[in-house]
């Protein structure tokens, strides 16, 4: 206020001067000179406090003349022009741009998958019985008795063993006859000679065949209903699949599927199994294997890793081919200093042996997770609890494996020297992939396929369930159509996987379902909105729209008030 009066005082002379010069040009109003004379007089009071002049003036100054009709109209038009922009353009834009797009998600289906209602995680396993010594009728009897025995035991709730007579071809030990995975296990019953009293069983190492030799006394006859042999077979099957059942129980128990459906939840999961599962890698369709040779000095500087891998590792990789793909790279690093320098490594020191800061073990090349296999050439050994016993390798959970090798004389490491390390790596690879430990290799791999597909189905279901809960819990989160597509695709593949649970196809479907469900859940535009409460909207809108809105609204209100007053005056 005071500043404007002083400013005005400065202006006073100049404006009056301007007026004086133009007064002749303007329409010759009567009190023009009067104005020019009075203005300096009213403002020359030097230090008048600002509130003072107002009452003094108000008595002197006559009230302002009534507003002209055209001015009133003009003001209404101006206010209308601003409000026209707000209402005709602003509101539609606000509506268009801030409506939250929520694609329709099949919430019921998603929750039913997460609750395990859509898929019964029971693996049908066909077991064929081949018995060249028995007649067809005897085999049928044996099968029906054993089947009823199997159905009676409660130990295998997640597995549904179905016995059947083997086709003739599966008796030959050719790879072709076992090429299809539809029959994971063949029982081959042979009659032993008279010397044996107890039946014996052994797993074939190359094919999924359980050889059972039984003494002639147990040979099933129509009278005995073959109960002795049937009991024995039942027990053998139970042992064979015990580990698979244990793993499945563990998975089901740790997943979100409600536990009341499974009797197995009370099934005590032993600690070693849980340890083994936690140290295996997260499932992926492709793994990247890195073979690294670290030496403490300048030699050896080359190694025959290519032929060693081809010779000792490739067979295992080939067997794993239906489940995983592998890419391989190798490297040699000289003058590598391990994280622990002591001669004999204790168990505690093993965890810090890898010099993660300096060794170039890149976490992942491409999209696939990396499994590291490290051979360290040095004089160090591993001291176990018992003083005299030493070992050379250890497995790092979810990371890879390390092998300590004493340096050869030459600068080149021949393939023969690498045999033991690579074989160790092959077995560690199987552990890292979560392969069960008991049984022959084909059995372990087929079990791995089934376990992994159940695992993937469970993961995908739980992701879908989380997404369903999320979309219910946050009504203001936008759901782009890509999420809905991902969910639909995931459910479709889950259904396919579930319909053929346990097969290689089902693993593939389950993997796709899991990827899609994860992608839908971690959709970028949704993650950003996870924490966006409604109060934030005030913070977004108010700083800009508040200052803009106040004059708009106040203008509208005064205009409406004036209009009302005028109407009352007229009336």
């Amino acid at each position, binding site marked *: 206020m005071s500043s404007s009066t002083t400013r005005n005082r400065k202006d006073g002379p100049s*404006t*009056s001067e301007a007026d004086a010069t133009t007064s002749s040009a*303007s329409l010759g109003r009567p*009190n023009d000179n009067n*104005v020019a004379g009075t203005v300096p007089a009213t403002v020359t009071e030097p230090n008048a406090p600002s509130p003072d002049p107002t009452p003094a003036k108000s008595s002197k100054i006559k009230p302002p003349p009534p507003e002209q009709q055209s001015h009133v109209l003009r003001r209404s038009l101006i206010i209308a022009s*601003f409000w026209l922009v707000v209402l005709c353009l602003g509101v539609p*834009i606000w509506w268009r741009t801030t409506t939250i797009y929520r694609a329709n998600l099949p919430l019921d289906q998603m929750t039913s998958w997460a609750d395990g209602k859509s898929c019964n995680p029971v693996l049908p396993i066909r077991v064929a019985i081949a018995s060249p010594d028995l007649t067809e009728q005897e085999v049928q009897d044996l099968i029906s008795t054993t089947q009823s025995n199997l159905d009676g035991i409660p130990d295998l709730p997640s597995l549904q063993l179905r016995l059947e007579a083997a086709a003739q071809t599966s008796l030959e030990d050719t790879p072709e006859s076992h090429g299809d995975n539809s029959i994971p296990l063949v029982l081959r019953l042979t009659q032993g000679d008279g010397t044996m009293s107890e039946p014996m069983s052994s797993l074939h190492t190359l094919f999924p065949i359980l050889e059972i030799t039984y003494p002639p006394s147990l040979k099933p006859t129509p009278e005995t209903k073959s109960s002795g042999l049937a009991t024995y077979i039942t027990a053998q099957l139970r042992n064979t699949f015990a580990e698979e059942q244990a793993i499945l129980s563990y998975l089901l128990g740790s997943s979100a599927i409600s536990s009341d459906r499974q009797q197995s939840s009370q099934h005590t999961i032993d600690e070693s199994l849980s340890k083994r599962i936690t140290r295996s890698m997260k499932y992926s369709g492709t793994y990247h294997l890195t073979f690294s040779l670290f030496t403490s000095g300048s030699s050896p500087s080359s190694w025959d890793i290519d032929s060693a891998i081809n010779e000792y590792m490739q067979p295992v990789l080939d067997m794993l081919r239906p489940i995983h793909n592998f890419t391989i790279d190798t490297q040699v690093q000289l003058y590598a200093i391990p994280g622990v320098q002591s001669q004999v490594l204790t168990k505690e020191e093993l965890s810090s042996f890898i010099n993660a800061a300096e060794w170039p073990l890149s976490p992942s090349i491409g999209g696939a997770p990396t499994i590291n296999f490290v051979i360290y050439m040095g004089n160090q050994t591993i001291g176990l609890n018992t003083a005299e016993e030493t070992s050379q390798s250890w497995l790092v959970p979810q990371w890879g494996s390390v092998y300590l090798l004493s340096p050869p004389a030459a600068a080149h490491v021949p393939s023969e020297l690498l045999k033991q390390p690579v074989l160790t790596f092959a077995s560690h690879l199987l552990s890292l992939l979560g392969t069960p430990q008991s049984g022959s290799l084909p059995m372990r791999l087929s079990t791995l396929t089934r376990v992994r597909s159940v695992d993937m189905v469970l993961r995908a279901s739980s992701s879908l369930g989380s997404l369903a809960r999320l979309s219910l819990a946050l009504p203001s989160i936008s759901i782009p159509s890509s999420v809905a597509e991902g969910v639909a695709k995931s459910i479709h593949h889950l259904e396919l996987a579930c319909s053929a649970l346990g097969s290689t196809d089902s693993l593939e479907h389950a993997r796709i379902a899991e990827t899609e469900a994860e992608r839908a859940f971690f959709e970028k535009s949704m993650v950003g909105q996870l924490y*966006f409460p409604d109060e934030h909207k005030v913070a977004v809108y108010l700083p800009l*729209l508040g200052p*803009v809105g106040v004059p708009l609204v106040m203008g509208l209100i005064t205009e409406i008030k004036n209009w009302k007053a005028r109407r009352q005056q007229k009336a």
Partner: protein
Amino acid sequence: MGFHDTAGLYGAAAALRLALFTFFPALPDLLTSRVEVSTPVTSFKRLQEGLFLYSHNVSPYDGGVYHQAPLLLPLFSLLPNASMYPFFTYLVYIVVDIATADALYQIAESGEAAASKLFTSARKDRRWSGYVVAAIFLFNPFTIATCLGRPTNVFTTCAILHAVAKAISGHPLTSMLALSFASYLSMYPVLLLPPLLLLAYDRQNATNRVDSLVQFSLTAVLAVVACLSTLFTISYLLTGSWEFFASTYGIQLTLTDLTPNVGLWWYFFIEMFDSFRSFFLGVFWLHLSSYVGGLSIRVRSQPLAAITILLGIFSIFKPYPSIADISLSLAVVPLFRHVFPLMRYTFFAASTILYSAFLGPAFYYLWIYAGSGNANFFYAITLVWSLGQSLLVSDLTFAILRDEWEVERPEMAGKEIRQI
């Protein structure tokens, strides 16, 4: 009012620019790379990129660098290569500056600012001649820096001022043509259409007058639409696709290029939540355009004043402002010399603008090169810059309205006023 009056002035301005180009050969390139001079939609460097692609028969919009109107390309490809023979480019920009100054000279000489058809200011004799106004424009450091930095919005400036000059001299169709060119180049000048229409309507020649405002506006709008469609069609034929819409006007509408500039938009939209981005783009554009209607109605009697105030508002609130915009808005302010005594904050506004003009480059340096500051430094100074400009604009608006009011109530001249 003849060319011999101003030939000396124009010659001096051209000589000054040529001297700067010649004796400081590094200066044009330095200014071209300054964010205060070159914005993504006007930069001369980006024009070179577009030109290179165009001359190699690749769509100039490939690569997302060039965001300017397609018709600039054949114009500049007629010139010799700007990096080898920069003299011709300099010449074009100097000529454009002088053409702009000439338009300004005509506007000032017409006296429209102080005495329009519907309103005559009591102070109308107190004004600067066209010579002075043109000189203020030509020797304004912002104008000179713009000329040296060679952004393409000097063409827009030239077209806008010629549109105003033609409207005043009673050539409505030529005026609309010039406005269409300005809109075609920079899009935002289309918002000047309503006040320019009123100006042209008021100053029609007596010989072929159209008395109905509606009929006049319809004809003029039709002329603008026809002219713009022709320009768009030529652009389409030139580039072979309609993608120039998205790459030129789309960029201004959606602000996808967030290169810092002296405006208020870039920082705001860097910080904006993604889900509200499109809404606030709408808000900002509506804010920019909402003044047009209100101002045209309020200062209906002085359309040139409405245009002046709008140019000031645009240079504050448009998406990619640069000092070329303030040089335009400062160019038309001296036309209102007669209301200067009524302005209250001239010192404050001028010192704020000077303060930020000097501190802006310093803070940009601290942020980008020295690394001892951050984006907030530069943004704070652009806020001060905008504050200075908005003070100037609001003060000018106040002075114009006060001037109008004093004609209505001469007994109140020079007295303190209070809003009631």
